[in-house]
């Protein structure tokens, strides 16, 4: 509402605004309508917010329930013995999953050795040559590979690494897991490398760096925090995979760390204990599941913490 304009020619200052007029009938009706609309909007807003919060809780619920049950049923079996002793034959109490824990670590390590270089290299190529036809093809195939059922991975590893040799081996299991890692690592690497600003690459090129050198020395180093995070997340994924190991690593009752022999793994051991008819073994299976989840959680948390990098890309 504008102030009344001073009309007197010898007025030194504009006259103060008149007292607010009583709202007309039309203005009053408009105000009431707006008030109800605003009120109704607020109510709808609260309801929708409540619904979304409920859904969020429901989304987190399965994990919480699982963790709770694992702790309840498996924690009792956890002891130093569990981590250091071998599985005992049926009937004897005690025993542990030492070989399975070590087996999982060896399999994940072998998978990483195989899958990380290929995945990171592929991701780097995809990010540097965004539009090339080969890049588009690789990206597409990588997505398809990502969606492949893990048991199919296992069958392939079985066909090419187990059958020719005639026996199961940790190496074949590791390779199967490594191949599963490749699409995941390639994707996250590509995204992290893309985040490196072009200006950084240009700065390196202008200094006389060759293109490959720019990619390796500058771009990869800058994106390294993100790439490591992606690698850890991929490792967490494959640590829990069972199907590819069924006919590659196969499982092993005894202590074995040789790559050429079948090897035990936590998921496999959990599987064989869980389908057995013995209660003791069931509790051991719960404990094994707890350890496996703990391993995955630790990897994921480390990945999250590592994301809080010292350098903020694109700052300033």
């Amino acid at each position, binding site marked *: 509402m504008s102030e009344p304009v001073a009309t007197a020619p010898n007025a030194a200052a504009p006259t103060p605004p008149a007292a607010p007029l009583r709202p007309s009938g039309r203005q009053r009706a408009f105000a009431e309508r707006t008030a109800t609309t605003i009120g109704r909007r607020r109510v709808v807003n609260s309801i929708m917010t409540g619904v979304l919060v409920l859904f969020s809780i429901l989304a987190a619920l399965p994990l919480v329930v699982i963790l709770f049950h694992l702790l309840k049923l498996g924690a009792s079996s956890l002891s130093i013995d569990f981590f250091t002793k071998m599985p005992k034959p049926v009937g004897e109490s005690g025993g542990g999953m030492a070989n399975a824990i070590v087996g999982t670590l060896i399999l994940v390590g072998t998978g990483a050795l195989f899958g990380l270089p290929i995945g990171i290299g592929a991701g780097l190529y995809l990010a540097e040559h965004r539009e090339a036809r080969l890049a588009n093809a690789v990206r597409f195939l990588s997505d398809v590979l990502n969606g492949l059922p893990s048991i199919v991975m296992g069958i392939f590893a079985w066909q090419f690494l187990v059958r020719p040799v005639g026996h199961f081996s940790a190496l074949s299991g590791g390779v199967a897991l490594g191949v599963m890692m490749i699409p995941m690592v390639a994707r996250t690497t590509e995204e992290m490398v893309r985040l490196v600003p072009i200006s950084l690459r240009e*700065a390196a090129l*202008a200094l*006389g*760096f060759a293109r490959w050198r720019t990619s390796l*020395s500058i771009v990869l180093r*800058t994106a390294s925090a993100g790439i490591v995070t992606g690698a850890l997340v991929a490792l967490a994924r494959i640590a829990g995979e069972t199907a590819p190991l069924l006919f590659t690593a196969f499982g092993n009752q005894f202590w074995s760390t040789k790559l050429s022999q079948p090897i035990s793994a936590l998921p496999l051991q959990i599987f064989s204990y869980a389908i057995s008819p013995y209660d003791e073994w069931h509790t051991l299976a719960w404990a094994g599941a707890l350890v496996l989840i703990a391993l995955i959680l630790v990897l994921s948390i480390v990945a999250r913490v590592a994301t809080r990098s010292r*350098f903020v890309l694109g*700052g*300033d």
Partner: protein
Amino acid sequence: MVAEQVNAWFGSTHAVRGVQMRILDRHVTAIIGPSGCGKSTYLRCLNRMHETVPNARVEGRVLLDGRDVYGKGVNAVAVRKHVGMVFQRPTPFPTMSIRDNVAAGLRVMDGDRPSRREADEIVERALRRAALWDEVKDRLSTGAVALSGGQQQRLCIARALATEPEVLLLDEPTASLDPISTQSVEELVYELRNSMTVVIVTHNMQQAARVSDFTCFFLNGEMVEMGATDSMFTTPKDSRTEAYITGRFG
């Protein structure tokens, strides 16, 4: 350095048209012109950076010490070791310390890599020339991203100077800097005139008047006029130059 009939394209857009220019050795040449007139593009043609953009093309000759940098068999990477460039926004390498940033170019120099001690000396010399030594000499191994914008840009200049290029190209180096940093960069450019050839693209006419010996005026991808800075700003020959300088457009 001599540019002969340089043309540059982004895809089908003809950004630089038939530029013919003689850049005098050990002098500062400024390139001025309104936004989008092709001055940055032209600058990037001088050290073969333009071709790093996808769908970009350059035709013409750029002679450095008599040799065409676009000649057959000439390696673009080798050219860039002799022609340094500083960009508009400071780009320190974020994962490296101040010292490593400045020494980054030394890793790819022709000939033997300098020893650690020699590299340190080169780093100190470059930082002194960039007027940054006193501010960072106690924290050479800290991350480069902790510096302020003006300091980062001076770091980038030191990085370019460390390899002792024959020509230094500056693409609006003070565009994102505060006035005090701008002043120190301008002083640096003025001091460099006797030791190397400098080409500076600037949006700021007063800056061109302050630091350069020669000025070129670009418009729509063409070089309209080039001359000694004093005479360019007082008695420009072309009417378009005069219009730009007097602020009738820009």
